[in-house]
């Protein structure tokens, strides 16, 4: 019979949590201290005071105009990542299942992958009048190839013996995909989503800078024009936090959906 949790085990857990928190905060605290130290030697428009930056972050979260700009950018990110899954998963799956499709589609996807994000921005400015279409197109073009190759690799990595097992029970092509491939595709989709969030966050501002009437890009453009360095840094912090929140959400969903995968090899 299991023993009831004792006070000492509770203390141990508290110590462990405190240690984890300390380890997590320490690198950021060191970076902040270094920044604050730099403020002593540089003018405020280059290295503004930390308190000033924190005040501006507070302003972003308390002003609806600014907060809505952040939410618009966040919405664009989520939309682009979701669309890239919808487009990329079937393509990656088809490439993994058919050598013919792989041979035909792979060069096209690689070509798209090779186009720099800034080039896409210029192309869409010429192609499309709608700002939302421009931004979505750039982000989707950036995210789809990553999704395609993650799903493709996931399908190719499936043990041939499992395929033989499923087929030996008389599974149809559709059942093969649904019962065997889809769980692996889900795992690959999570990997792609994590990569895409990082890439999309880095690109969305570039896309928004080119004539978007709303979003963090526009706010950053305004702050740049005013030489408002604290606000630029405040928006940067918001963007990074946004990325952390999205990654955390994806990882939590992954833990639930892919419970069967357990921990990493050789780790608790």
């Amino acid at each position, binding site marked *: 019979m299991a023993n009831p949790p004792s006070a000492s085990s509770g203390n141990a857990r508290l110590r462990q949590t405190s240690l984890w928190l300390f380890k997590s905060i320490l690198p950021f605290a060191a970076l902040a201290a270094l920044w604050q130290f730099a403020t002593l030697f540089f003018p405020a428009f280059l290295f503004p005071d930390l308190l000033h930056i924190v005040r501006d972050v507070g302003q972003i979260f308390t002003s609806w105009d600014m907060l809505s700009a952040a939410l618009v950018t966040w919405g664009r990110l989520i939309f682009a990542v979701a669309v890239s899954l919808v487009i990329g998963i079937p393509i990656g799956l088809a490439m993994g299942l058919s050598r013919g499709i792989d041979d035909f589609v792979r060069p096209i996807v690689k070509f798209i992958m090779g186009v720099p994000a800034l080039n896409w921005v210029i192309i869409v400015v010429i192609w499309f009048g709608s700002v939302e279409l421009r931004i979505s197109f750039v982000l989707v073009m950036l995210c789809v190839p990553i999704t395609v190759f993650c799903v493709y690799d996931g399908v190719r990595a499936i043990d041939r*013996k499992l395929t*033989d097992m*499923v*087929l*030996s*029970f008389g599974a149809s092509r559709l059942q093969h995909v649904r019962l065997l491939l889809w769980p692996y595709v889900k795992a690959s989709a999570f990997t792609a989503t994590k990569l895409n969030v990082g890439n999309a966050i880095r690109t969305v501002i570039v896309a928004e800078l080119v004539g978007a009437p709303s979003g963090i890009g526009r706010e950053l453009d305004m702050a740049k024009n005013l030489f408002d360095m604290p606000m630029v840094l405040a928006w940067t912090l918001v963007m990074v936090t946004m990325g952390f929140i999205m990654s955390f959400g994806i990882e939590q969903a992954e833990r639930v959906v892919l419970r*069967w995968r357990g921990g990493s090899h050789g780790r608790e």
Partner: protein
Amino acid sequence: MAVNKLAPVNASVKAGAPAAAVVPKIRIDRARKTFVQKNGGAVEAIRELTFDVAANDYVAIVGPTGAGKSVLFDCLLGLKTLDSGRIEIDGQPIANYIGARSGRITRIFQEDRLLPWLSATDNVALGLQIRGVPEKERRDIARRWLADVGLHEFVDALPSELSGGMRQRTNIARAFATAPEIILLDEAFSALDEITAMKLRSDFLTLAHHQKMTFVMVTHSIDEAIFLGNRILVFGAPARVVHEIAVPPGAAEDRVVADRIRDEIRTWISASGRDASRTVNSELENE
């Protein structure tokens, strides 16, 4: 490991195997299969293979590694097609049989091949799911089979939470759950430790007897072939029958009979080709 509720099998189970029916359960007639390699060379896997398996027959195939035994099983499941020759089940060409009676012929692999994201119940129910059995019904059947192989306490466990023996029991339960008429055992017990393998062989034989099943097994263990089979086919490489031995009831417990069968198999494997005998003899030495 959970205790199996099934009684241990004895020689009388095998003694009850019926005589051959008029139409054999499986008929393989002059089957040939050759694979073309990337360098243009050809590898002959099956050569003029001919044999029958009667309903409720327990046939063990022994032979050298690479003798095309697994290719034969792929052909029996309709996963590969022959270059020439015929495979019939219940007098029907294999393609008709597979199409009409999906799941009636199943295979137990050397490795458990369980899907890691499915519970033991859902793994056992997989073949039924493929056949379109409603969820509640297939899960009930799966739980009953898990209980039959002694895993009633592990119905919700993931494969990663089961021992090797438990996973192989789940694998066996999955094969039986579809109520197959024919089971193909592809070195099904070779990955297990000998004590677990002995128990599982015994349980398998009891289940096969109760379910009035026909099975064909490929094994590298002569003792396993004597224990489970009532006929042993000695294969040469490429796959062809070089000798057939009828296993009398109780042969596994009778040292004299078992030794005679072992010697007979060794002799025929040696005669079937130097390369083949080298492979098998090294395996026999390991036994």
